[in-house]
Structure formats: structure tokens, C-alpha cells
């Protein structure tokens, strides 16, 4: 299996695990987990070949995708899906540093990008290689802190930093375009000194090319679909938080293509 096939296979495996977590006692943020999943697969593939590069999932409510991708990457040895939501398990609805591979607690939106900027700046200050890949939601960009962190990145000319925006168009109470639209987003990010690219957020190869950190901070606007990969949930606002029966989960998993 070549690397591309391997990554597609990883994504399909991880999607099935996310569906398993939606079938847990507590359900999961399925829509946003499936929209961000290919971004995480690509981000970890990039980070693997660049020592000292940290991936920070700032949209912490997509924890199910993070646990699944960390597992298929071998970072979480045990299968987290059967433990998700179980009493006494570290696999909570938002990730904490008790989970292998997670350094920063996220779940309060907007925090992760600042952590990533701090990490990337520290690598430079410590004279060590590496940087950070921060994954944020599009709705999350409504948080002022995101823009403060972008400002710090610009002011400190932080290289080795990529911000990937999971542009799935949804947020908790509806659509980003209705609630607080992100007008001229590419131009806004460019004005903060970021090299901006726009890619299909489900094309892992293109994502990898776009994500590789450079000397200048990068922003990747990844267009995605909520619930991607499970036809019954694709593009549906109701896929934001899903608890599904085991029987239906089985059907959904069977429909996932690698």
C-alpha cells in the first residue's frame, strides 16, 4: 500500500470509529468530527515527518475525530471507541491532556490557536525544530481570541505555523452565514500576514501540500461537509450532535468508503 492509499484507509477506519462513538451511551459531535477528520489525517501525516510539530485541535468538540485519528496513527494504543463516554474513561467529550497525544485541553472555543502560537514561538526561542498546526472551526473564528492569536503570530513573525480552518459552514445554533458571516475571510487572513490557500477539505493529498508549515505563517481554508463520509448525515444541520443506535451505526459504517 502506498502512502496515499494508507492515509485513505486510515481516514475510513477513523470514520468508522467516530460512528462507533456516536453509538456510545452519550453520542458525539458527529457532524463536525466527520468534517474535520480528513484534515486531522493530513495534519498528523505532515507532523509525523517534521519532529517537534504539534497538532492542536482547537475545535475540541470534535474530540471523537481526534481520538479516532490518534488511534489509527498508533498514538492511542487501545481502541478508544468502546471506552468513549464510559465512566472512568479519559475519552471525554472535549479532549484533555490525560489522552496520549493531547497536550492542550480544548473545548472552550478560541483557545487552541493561542496555544499553537505559543508552541511554535517556543520552538524558535529554544532553537529547536518544529512548529504547530492548529485546526479551528469556521464558527470558532467569531471568537475574538482567534484574531488576537493571529495578531501575535504576525507581530512575532512566527514561521512553522499553519492554521487550518474547517469550513463546514455550520455552528451550534445554525449556519455561520446566517448567524455571523465570515465576509472576505481569505483577504482578512492575508491582511494578518498569513499565506492563504483554499482547498477541498476532504482531499488528503492537497491538504497535506497546503498544510506543510513554511517560513511565513500559513492559513488553509479547507472546505468541508458536515457528516462527510456517512451519506445519511452529509450536509445535514441535525448531524451536529448525534446519538445513533448500534444497528444504524452498523449500516452507516458499511457505507463508509476508503
Amino acid at each position, binding site marked *: 500500500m502506498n502512502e496515499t492509499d494508507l492515509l485513505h484507509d486510515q481516514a475510513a477506519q477513523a470514520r468508522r470509529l467516530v460512528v462507533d462513538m456516536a453509538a456510545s451511551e452519550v453520542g458525539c459531535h458527529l457532524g463536525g468530527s466527520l468534517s474535520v477528520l480528513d484534515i486531522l489525517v493530513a495534519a498528523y501525516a505532515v507532523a509525523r515527518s517534521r519532529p517537534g510539530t504539534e497538532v492542536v485541535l482547537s475545535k475540541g468538540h470534535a474530540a471523537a475525530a481526534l481520538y479516532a485519528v490518534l488511534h489509527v496513527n498508533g498514538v492511542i494504543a487501545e481502541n478508544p471507541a468502546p471506552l468513549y463516554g464510559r465512566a472512568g474513561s479519559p475519552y471525554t467529550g472535549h479532549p484533555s491532556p*490525560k489522552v496520549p497525544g493531547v497536550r492542550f485541553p480544548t*473545548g472552550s472555543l478560541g483557545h487552541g490557536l493561542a496555544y499553537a502560537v505559543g508552541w511554535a514561538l517556543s520552538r524558535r526561542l529554544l532553537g529547536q525544530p518544529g512548529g504547530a498546526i492548529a485546526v479551528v472551526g469556521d464558527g470558532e473564528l*467569531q471568537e475574538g481570541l482567534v484574531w488576537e492569536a493571529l495578531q501575535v503570530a504576525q507581530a512575532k513573525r512566527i514561521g512553522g505555523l499553519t492554521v487550518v480552518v474547517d469550513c463546514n459552514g455550520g455552528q451550534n445554533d445554525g449556519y455561520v452565514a446566517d*448567524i455571523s458571516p465570515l465576509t472576505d475571510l481569505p483577504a482578512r487572513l492575508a491582511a494578518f500576514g498569513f499565506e492563504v490557500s483554499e482547498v477541498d477539505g476532504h482531499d488528503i493529498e492537497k491538504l497535506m501540500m497546503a498544510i506543510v508549515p513554511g517560513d511565513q505563517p500559513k492559513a488553509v481554508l479547507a472546505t468541508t461537509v458536515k457528516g462527510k463520509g456517512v451519506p445519511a448525515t452529509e450536509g445535514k444541520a441535525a448531524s451536529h450532535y448525534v446519538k445513533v443506535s448500534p444497528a444504524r451505526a452498523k449500516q452507516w459504517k458499511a457505507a463508509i468508503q476508503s
Partner: protein
Amino acid sequence: MRNAAINELAELARADSRIMLLTADLGFGVLDNFARELPKQFVNVGVAEQAMVGVATGMAEAGLLPYCYSIATFSFLRPFEFIRNGPVAHRLPVTIMGVGAGTDYSFDGMTHYAIEDLAMARSQPGLTIYAPVTDDDARVLVREAGERPGPAYIRLNRQGSPRPSQDIRAEQPQQTDVLVLALGNGQERAHAIAERVHDSGVQTRVLSVLRFDEQTADDLAAHLAQAKVCLTVEDHYQVGGLGSAAADVIATRGIGVRLVKDAIAALPVGRIGSPQFVINKLHRPVDDLAADLVSRLPSVR
């Protein structure tokens, strides 16, 4: 409980067009009816809690009566400085509604636990704090917050307690061996402990503290003076919450009662789970507490 609170607010808002309900994008399923029925009195500012409180401050200054709704960590903790410099400093009628008091959002992890909100809120002069126990309490207190001038913080749970609360302000002080004071959803645990204590033949009384305002110290003093031992039960850190409020009163007024605090001492990180699992992990076992209380009575029976 959150639905009861929002339904009550909707009723107030129908009669008073100055009432505005703001959310930072966490109203799905809870605020939908309000937004549909009263669209001119509803604003979703997006995922922007600090802006929500800033906007509410501007609205209040302009003569409106804004209510800010989100999960408690996001509506109260995150924009705290905005609450302090806006509604508190200028005595403006802004009401912050925080859902998920304590570890209510158990499975969501510590980013969603409001376990220091009372400590922060109690520090603010003129900020009235409401801590309903039941759905009925929530209705009454939302109405009360609306009638009172100045800023308020209402800490809500997702579900109200099924057992009616005994409000410390409404109940007459009575002599008792062990007085158990509960905050919010701590009431159920308070009753479980009190029952164990009662089993040892010791007289107990369980009351809830529903309001923290300028009268609360007097409320506490009147009841504490009638007890030999007091236990405070709260799903909150042990510093700054109900236990601290009782300790302040005991020390500053020289009341001869021993205080035991049932509160959260450690960081709530790591292995967690259902609400009950989290409570059990973060608090002392009920039997231990009951035995401790009995052993502290001046003369063990």
C-alpha cells in the same frame, strides 16, 4: 431547569419589550421558541462571549434589560472582566444566565465545569447571585432577578431537582444538631448525607441557599446560631463558595458552630464520566462525611 428559566423569561419578555435575550451560539433546542416568538428581542452574537457581555452592557446603558445565556463557563467565567467593568461597575441591569453549574456537563470535561463561578461572583459588590435547586425555584428567581435593580448571575442546572428546596431565607431558624446547607444540585447529596446522620440518632436539617446578596450573611447567621455542627454541600471548589460564605459568617460573628465543607478540592481532570461518577470521584464518600459530622458533635450520643 434551563427550559423553565427560559419559559419564564419569555413570559416576562412578552409583557416588557425592553427585555433582550442574548446568546453566544449555545441556544440550540433551548432558546428556539423564544427566538421564533420574539425575534426582535433575541440576538445570537455568534461564538463571542466577551462581545455578548459588552453588547449587553451597551444595551443596558441605553435602557434595555439584557439577559446573556450560555454554558456557565462561557457566559460567566470567560467574560468575567467585562461583567466586572460593565454591569457591576455601573450597576446596570444585565443578567448573566449560566447553564451547567458545577460538574453538570460531566462527560464534556473540565472546560465545561463551572466550579469557581460562585467564588468569582461573590467577590463582586452588588452582583446578586441566584442558585435555584428546582424548576420552580428557577421560575421564581428569574422573575425576582427581573424585578431587582442592578446586575445578576443565575447559575442553572440542565435538570432541576425533583425534591422541593427548603429556602434558608423563607424557613424559620430551629435548633438542630447538624445543619446541612446545600447549593444548587448539591441538595440531593445533602439529603443523602443527612439521612445517614439521622440514622445515628442525630437531629438534622437540610436547607438550600438560593441567593447570595446583602442579606445572605444574616440568613446564614440566624440558622448557624441554632446548630452544633454545619455541613455545606456544593458542587464547587472549596474556596470561595457556600462553605466559605458560612465560614466568613461564623468567624466574623463569633458563632460557636463547627463547620465541615463538602466541596471540590482537586482539579477535575482525567478519568471522568457520568454526573454521578464525577460527583463521587471529586467528593468524599457520603458515609465518611456522615461519620465525621457525628464525631464533631460536642457530646457524642
